[in-house]
């Protein structure tokens, strides 16, 4: 019982420092979420779902301060046409953001959304609540209860440019909680970009409802601040013939836990989640994915690649759950790490749970080093060891990066990866 008592005191200590935003259309959802997180308690290392990732710095009362990281790189996604929405240490920055009006989409700030009946009312916290079963995700419930800012994006058409969320980190002690809600109407299509380190500690939740025939693209680049800590959740529900594609690049970061929970509820829906991460030294990256097939003829792909060096740690927990009536499911999952030295480690827990009989599911997980024969072959043709290693490393990451449909975005991610590798050569 000592464990339970400890869990309660951790939870109380964290929640005690937060205050529930009062009033407004989200009040009920927030109160419910608070009750959920109190009932669940915040995660601890003893929890099975946190076996490979220490949650303490994510759950303790105060954020561990994180030094700001200076770099002179041009901001990612900066070259393309986009609608910019900027947050500084988790607070919407109207000055730095563009005008939020854009054809085919309405965007409101969570903190300002009108108190009359808002479309997000039925969605805020709803997908998160659904995603608590069968595995508890207390940090997401905490987010729903206490989020101080975020955007509500209602996509009614096909906006002409991506919506680009940029998260700046300016204060060494910032502790940000953001919650975004995105709804795509039937047949709508949008691309959402995210980048930046955000805060010393960042808890972010994104709920995405993709209606029948709608298409959602998501490309995210998690900033290079070494000391940042982040726990993020994506909850998505997919309608008939809808498409959801999410890619995340993570470079550096002492602790990142990205959870992605997807429910395929309409027939012939498609969900692809991919990630490429590169870590050097004090780096811990955790991809935790849970995809539920609950309709006929759906396809899901999970492609996660990690490059680890100098004692970096990569974690992958990925599950495909195929419900009884989800016949003709096509599920694919691969998680691989490239360990550039003996000190780094990759911990993987791939899981399949299948109740339908007519399905095709495959999963694989590997850890390996650079192929010495390939390296020698390249060098024997005159390519020096550093660039040759980079070339092989990018080739290793390619399957994940290729999940990005848009060529410009794909090139941009590849350029960032190449630049990172060049900076981090041995």
């Amino acid at each position, binding site marked *: 019982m000592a464990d339970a008592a400890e869990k309660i005191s951790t939870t109380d200590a964290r929640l005690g420092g937060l205050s529930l935003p009062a009033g407004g259309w989200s009040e009920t959802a927030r109160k419910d979420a608070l009750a959920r997180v109190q009932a669940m308690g915040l995660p601890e290392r003893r929890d099975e779902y946190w076996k490979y990732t220490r949650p303490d710095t994510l759950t303790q009362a105060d954020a561990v301060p994180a030094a700001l990281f200076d770099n002179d790189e041009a901001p990612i996604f900066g070259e393309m046409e986009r609608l910019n929405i900027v947050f500084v240490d988790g607070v919407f920055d109207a000055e730095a953001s563009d005008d939020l009006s854009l054809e085919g989409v309405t965007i409101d700030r969570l903190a300002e959304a009108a108190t009359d009946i808002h479309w997000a009312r039925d969605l805020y916290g709803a997908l998160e609540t659904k995603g608590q079963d069968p595995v508890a995700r207390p940090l997401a419930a905490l987010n729903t209860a206490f989020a101080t800012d975020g955007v509500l994006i209602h996509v009614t058409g096909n906006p002409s440019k991506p919506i680009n969320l940029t998260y700046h980190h300016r204060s060494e002690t910032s502790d940000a909680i953001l919650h975004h809600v995105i709804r795509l109407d039937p047949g709508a299509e949008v691309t959402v970009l995210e980048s930046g380190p955000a805060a010393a500690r960042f808890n972010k939740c994104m709920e995405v409802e993709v209606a029948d025939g709608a298409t959602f693209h998501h490309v995210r680049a998690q900033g290079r601040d070494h000391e940042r800590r982040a726990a993020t959740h994506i909850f998505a529900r997919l309608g008939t013939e809808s498409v959801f594609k999410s890619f995340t690049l993570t470079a550096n970061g002492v602790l990142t836990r990205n959870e992605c929970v997807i429910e395929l509820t309409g027939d012939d829906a498609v969900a692809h989640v991919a990630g490429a991460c590169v870590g050097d030294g004090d780096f811990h990256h955790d991809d935790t994915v849970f995809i539920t097939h609950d309709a006929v003829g759906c396809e899901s792909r999970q492609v996660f690649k990690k490059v680890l060096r100098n004692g970096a740690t990569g974690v992958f927990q990925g599950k495909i759950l195929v419900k009884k009536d989800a016949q003709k499911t096509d599920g694919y999952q691969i998680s691989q790490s490239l360990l550039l030295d003996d000190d780094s480690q990759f911990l993987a827990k791939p899981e399949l749970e299948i109740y339908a009989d007519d399905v095709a599911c495959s999963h694989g997980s590997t850890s390996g080093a650079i192929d010495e024969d390939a390296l020698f072959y390249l*060098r024997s*043709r*005159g390519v020096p060891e550093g660039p040759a290693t980079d070339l092989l490393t990018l080739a290793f990451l390619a399957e994940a990066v290729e999940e990005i449909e848009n060529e410009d975005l794909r090139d941009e991610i590849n350029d960032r990866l190449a630049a990172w590798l060049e900076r981090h050569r041995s």
Partner: protein
Amino acid sequence: MLSIKNLHVKLEEEDKQILKGVDLEIEAGKVHAIMGPNGSGKSTLSYVLSGKEGYEVTDGSALLEGADVLEMEPEERAAAGLFLAFQYPVEIPGVGNMTFLRTAVNAQRKARGEEEMSAAEFLKAVRARAKELKIDADMLKRPVNVGFSGGEKKRNEILQMAMLEPRMCILDETDSGLDVDAMKLVAEGVNALRSEGRGFLVITHYQRLLDHIKPDVVHIMADGKIVKSGGPELALEVENNGYGDILAEVA
């Protein structure tokens, strides 16, 4: 061009001596062939010259135009003009053949302080040479050697050689796995590169290749040493009688 003296090589991991005093002098403009029984050390010689790890030079030297190649990194040897067509070309998933070739050509140019080749220039050059070797556009786009047939891999080696224009070319059993027509193509590729300033070392088991690529000198390697050298007639003798007589004669 390439001057090898008393080269002794053992495996790094094991106490196994593989090359036991190789002497070889390849002049610019000449084609030398090496034949010899399986396991006699021919590939090892080619690997040691190109800088593969796992071997330890215990004695002797190898100079490329006076420079000690054994002291150089593999990429430095390549930039200095050494090229090895592998007996077993390596597959590299995820790296496009074109990207690979262009990276290699420009890396060598950069190392030599020359200007890099522009994308357009490069494309033109590759296309012309690929056509001569009957390598189609699809093969150029695919990842390096992945899914290539044995013969396609060998032709791809010659394409790389043609693009890199090395001064000292070592071909390790480039004829094995080739059909008669492909062998001709490869031989033509090699012959096209023959010039005053370029040396060749052709490792082969068969006289047939040497019908197309006329060697100036033929060497027989056995148990880590060159045991006999002669003219093209030596290859014919091997073809007809095997190694028995030669080995008995030198024993």
